[in-house]
């Protein structure tokens, strides 16, 4: 069977603004194909938009990352798994998953998030004030991309922002592919312990923040467990700042490289939300978080997949599939990109997606509105893109104005 894997996974990029070239090859030649994983195992790589949506929205695929047969994307990943550990929302299947997700989802309705808009605007303005008051060139990652989503998610959850360096440092270790499994495990543990202590304190007199309200709600339902809420808090904190931060940095570079697209949102902020969707599609920064384990035989894209086999739903390939997006490698904010799978698809689709959309919308309008002369202070070729992380992005982004 070893001869059937034509590609190793992960596949290498050759351009910071495009998926690995091998994605196009497999999408056109063998859209569901076997790939070799870093630990020597293999999995099916699913590369077309329609098939990716099928994998992510069919109960015959499990999200149980703690299962020993779940595809391992990082060498030695199994060693960093603890089967006895609290199962996080992202690793749950039906029927456990739905109620756990819905318990917190009321915090993320479009209406609830809309009420946060003025405060998010204030946070963005405050960070841009700081950037403008600092030296030129300044680092956009430090001054804007990271602090904005970190401040927002900290305020929502009721996590002291003063601790952001602690969890930011550990988040970097969690998502870096080269982090040894034991270190990754320790980093996860450190953030979860921090959350557990914070929540224990909140239990005494639950405050009016997301974690406090969850304590009250889950106690009323009779389902409250501190470790489960700590796991949820961990996910929201990590997912809530790192992803949006990377999208802010990457999109800023993309706008500056495509001034005609930038001019369109400057002329009409009504177009900014479309631009947000297109940026999400164009970069698809979490390409491989959507691995699954097949638990019942199924045919996808003409290929039989059997129970026990691993599947990688390649979101970045789906989002560059010409069957779903015309001229997919072009950046076109007016294309109508909403059916992208950058937030995933199916029951696990990102629950913070509308918060992310709002943050990006406010940042784009405010950044380019207040600093119309913004430009990169480093050649694009030299920018430190996160080629070594499970979430794509930029470590630094020197800008001037």
């Amino acid at each position: 069977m070893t001869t059937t894997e034509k590609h190793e996974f992960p596949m290498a990029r050759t351009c910071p603004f495009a998926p690995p070239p091998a994605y196009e090859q497999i999408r056109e030649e063998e859209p569901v194909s076997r790939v070799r994983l870093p630990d020597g195992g293999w999995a099916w790589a699913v590369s077309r938009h329609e098939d990716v949506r099928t994998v992510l929205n069919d109960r015959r695929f499990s999200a149980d990352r703690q299962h020993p047969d779940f595809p391992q994307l990082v060498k030695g990943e199994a060693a960093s798994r603890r089967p006895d550990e609290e199962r996080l929302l992202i690793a749950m299947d039906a029927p456990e998953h739905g109620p756990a997700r819905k318990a917190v989802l009321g915090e993320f309705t479009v209406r609830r998030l809309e009420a946060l808009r003025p405060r998010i605007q204030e946070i963005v303005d405050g960070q841009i004030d700081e950037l403008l008051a600092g030296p030129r060139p300044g680092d956009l990652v430090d001054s804007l991309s990271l602090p904005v989503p970190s401040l927002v998610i900290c305020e929502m959850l009721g996590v002291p922002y003063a601790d952001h360096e602690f969890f930011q440092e550990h988040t970097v270790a969690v998502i870096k592919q080269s982090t040894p499994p034991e270190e990754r495990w320790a980093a996860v543990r450190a953030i979860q312990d921090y959350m557990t202590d914070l929540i224990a304190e909140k239990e005494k007199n639950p405050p009016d923040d997301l974690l406090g309200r969850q304590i009250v709600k889950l106690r009323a339902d009779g389902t409250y467990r501190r470790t489960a809420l700590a796991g949820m808090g961990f996910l929201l904190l990590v997912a809530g700042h790192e992803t949006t931060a990377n999208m802010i940095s990457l999109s800023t570079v993309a706008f500056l490289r495509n001034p005609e697209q930038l001019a369109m949102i400057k002329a009409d902020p009504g177009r900014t939300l479309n631009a947000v969707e297109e940026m999400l599609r164009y970069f698809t920064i979490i390409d491989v978080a959507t691995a699954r384990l097949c638990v019942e035989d199924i045919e996808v894209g003409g290929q039989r997949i059997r129970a026990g086999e691993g599947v990688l739903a390649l979101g970045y390939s789906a989002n560059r599939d010409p069957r779903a997006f015309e001229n997919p490698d072009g950046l076109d904010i007016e294309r109508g990109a909403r059916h992208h799978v950058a937030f995933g698809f199916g029951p696990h689709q990102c629950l913070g997606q509308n918060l992310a959309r709002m943050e990006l919308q406010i940042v784009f309008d405010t950044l380019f509105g207040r600093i119309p002369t913004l430009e990169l202070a480093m050649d694009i070729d030299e920018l430190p893109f996160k080629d070594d992380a499970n979430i794509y992005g930029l470590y630094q982004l020197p800008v001037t104005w």
Partner: protein
Amino acid sequence: MRIIADTGRCVGAGQCVLIEPELFDQSEDDATIIVLNETPEGELVEKARQAVHVCPSQALSLED
């Protein structure tokens, strides 16, 4: 045309609300879908089609 929403399938992503708040809302408790207008007309028909197209749980459908 009638909008059919399967609230059991709905995963509360809120994409339908973003597309057209005149047609869709979310439960305050668990964010699942509330259809405000089941029989859209005029420009709202196209919005309903878009919502069906992007719904991540394929919980929405249209009936002629």
